[in-house]
């Protein structure tokens, strides 16, 4: 009996992610969901600009690389062109919640039938650790060297809370990947976000609270502890919206 194997929806290309980065776990969860639902051959993924920019090399399904922040618009085009295909985006916090906020909000309010995987690690990783829209108050980054001062640069954005105020979206959940229990829950949420699309339920977003040991300047273990002690209290886990129990019209 096979206890553990690489998901078929991942290619053999080695990840470029830093040691201890949780993108690897999240890629795996997405691939497991695609495998589990048997949809690899009909799925098209959209990669962001940011650390996951080369996700197109890692997922074995057809892939599109979008401009920074525009993945939901690109996914909208793909889904409208091919309603029978499963379309997902994989985006970071700078991509989804800063430069691409308009595309995020409007694809959500249209209840675009797509799946959005939102990786929130509170920092711009690829460019070397700048302040993100989700950086915590007081968080030290390259562009907030004295700590995020909310008086001058404002507060972090809680994406799930904000989007769940809209009538449009079908399903909004926040999960984390800092321990085994949370990873298992994250896997379930991601699978549900794909199932919703298969069932025509509409816009499903899973925010994954993640870590960035390199740019946080921590060991991987300490980074996971920081997720537990600082990130999750600011970004509480849970289901923020779920209209999937309602009848489909």
């Amino acid at each position, binding site marked *: 009996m096979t206890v553990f194997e690489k998901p078929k929806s991942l*290619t053999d290309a080695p990840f470029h992610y830093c040691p201890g980065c949780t993108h690897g776990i999240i890629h795996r969860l997405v691939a497991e969901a695609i495998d589990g639902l048997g949809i*690899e051959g009909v799925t098209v993924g959209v990669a962001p600009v940011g650390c996951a920019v080369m996700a197109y090399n890692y997922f074995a399904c057809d892939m*599109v690389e979008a401009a920074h922040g525009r993945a939901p618009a690109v996914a909208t*085009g*793909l889904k409208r*062109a091919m309603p029978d*295909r499963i379309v997902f985006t994989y985006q970071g916090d700078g991509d989804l919640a800063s430069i691409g906020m308009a595309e995020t909000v409007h694809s959500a309010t249209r209840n675009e039938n797509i799946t959005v995987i939102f990786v929130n690690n509170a920092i711009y990783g690829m460019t070397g650790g700048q302040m993100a829209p989700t950086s915590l108050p007081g968080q030290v980054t390259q562009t907030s060297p004295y700590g995020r001062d909310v008086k001058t640069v404002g507060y972090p954005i809680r994406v799930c809370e904000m989007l769940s105020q809209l009538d449009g979206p079908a399903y909004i959940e926040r999960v984390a990947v800092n321990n085994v229990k949370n990873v298992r829950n994250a896997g379930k949420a991601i699978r549900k976000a794909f199932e919703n699309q298969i069932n025509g339920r509409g816009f499903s977003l899973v925010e994954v609270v993640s870590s960035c040991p390199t740019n946080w300047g921590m060991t991987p273990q300490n980074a996971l502890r920081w997720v537990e002690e600082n990130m999750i209290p600011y970004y509480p886990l849970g289901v923020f919206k779920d209209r999937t129990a309602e009848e489909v019209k």
Partner: protein
Amino acid sequence: MAEKVLMKGNEAIAEAAILAGCRHYFGYPITPQTEIAAYLAKRMPKIGGCFLQAESEIAAINMVYGVASAGKRVMTSSSSPGISLKGEGLSYLAGSDLPALVVNVQRGGPGLGGIQPSQSDYFQATRGGGHGDYRMIVLAPASAQEMADLTIKGFDLADNYRVTCMLLADGTMGQMMEPVELPAPVEPSVGKPWAVTGTEGKRRHNIINSLSLVPEELEQLNFARFERYAEIERKEPMWESFMAEDADIVVVAFGIAARVSKNAVVAARESGIKAGLIRPITLWPFPKQPLAEAAQKAKHFISVELSMGQMIEDVQLAIRCSRPVTLCNRVGGMIPTPEQVLESIRSANRR
């Protein structure tokens, strides 16, 4: 012969897009291209197509990117300030070698400018608009009929060469009503094995992408793209030549400026001046050859433009500055009169 219909230029574009097999349109409201969106908002749902008003020009061009990635014909339209916003997307479309049709019904600028006709986006259309080394095929219609014909031609060119094609019209062309003989519907025939339609487990995954971090590879991609551009420059220049064969004074103008100039050329001929008109229909590739040939006989060129003088540089390049080229122009939404062009012709003839 098909029946003629009285249509606005903008409506001719919209209906021609449908006839070309385009079933996806994304746009954002802006004057003076509004009729395109309004027309397609009515028509698309009736024929199983998709009309979607995007949250911004930026979103619209990226929705275009998505449909083009799926291998289907797709169009967006805007006017000058909106095209600036689409600049990023135009660069990505070029970098990913995706075919699409983008319409610019130009208005006066820069900035918010005005809403009256202009041709001052010539540089933006023919020199880039977005970042990086790339070209778009730029078509310049001068009648409602050409708005329709060049829309269909634009989709074909885009598919054939995997490039973005821009229909560069102006507010006059968009708003003017003229009889149009609608072309027959076209069935898109170019295969797109590169499209991301799902592997179905039958092939390796396709990737639509403009990122290439290895300099040697990115250089080769640019070289390959420019080989295609060179082929376009050889095969696709289009122009109309009007009384230009024996002309002493050659007027060069496109779009509405060409319509005005034609009247001036006729008037000049009536007064004994050998004037002619060369009307570029493709602005890129620019029709260099007919201009170079005309320069063998002509003594003077006049570039008539609704801009501060943009195409004039291509005219000078095409004739290698072998003859004087003067500018006859109005800007800000103003249009030169035939009298103004005639006066430029007379003035050139007196030299």
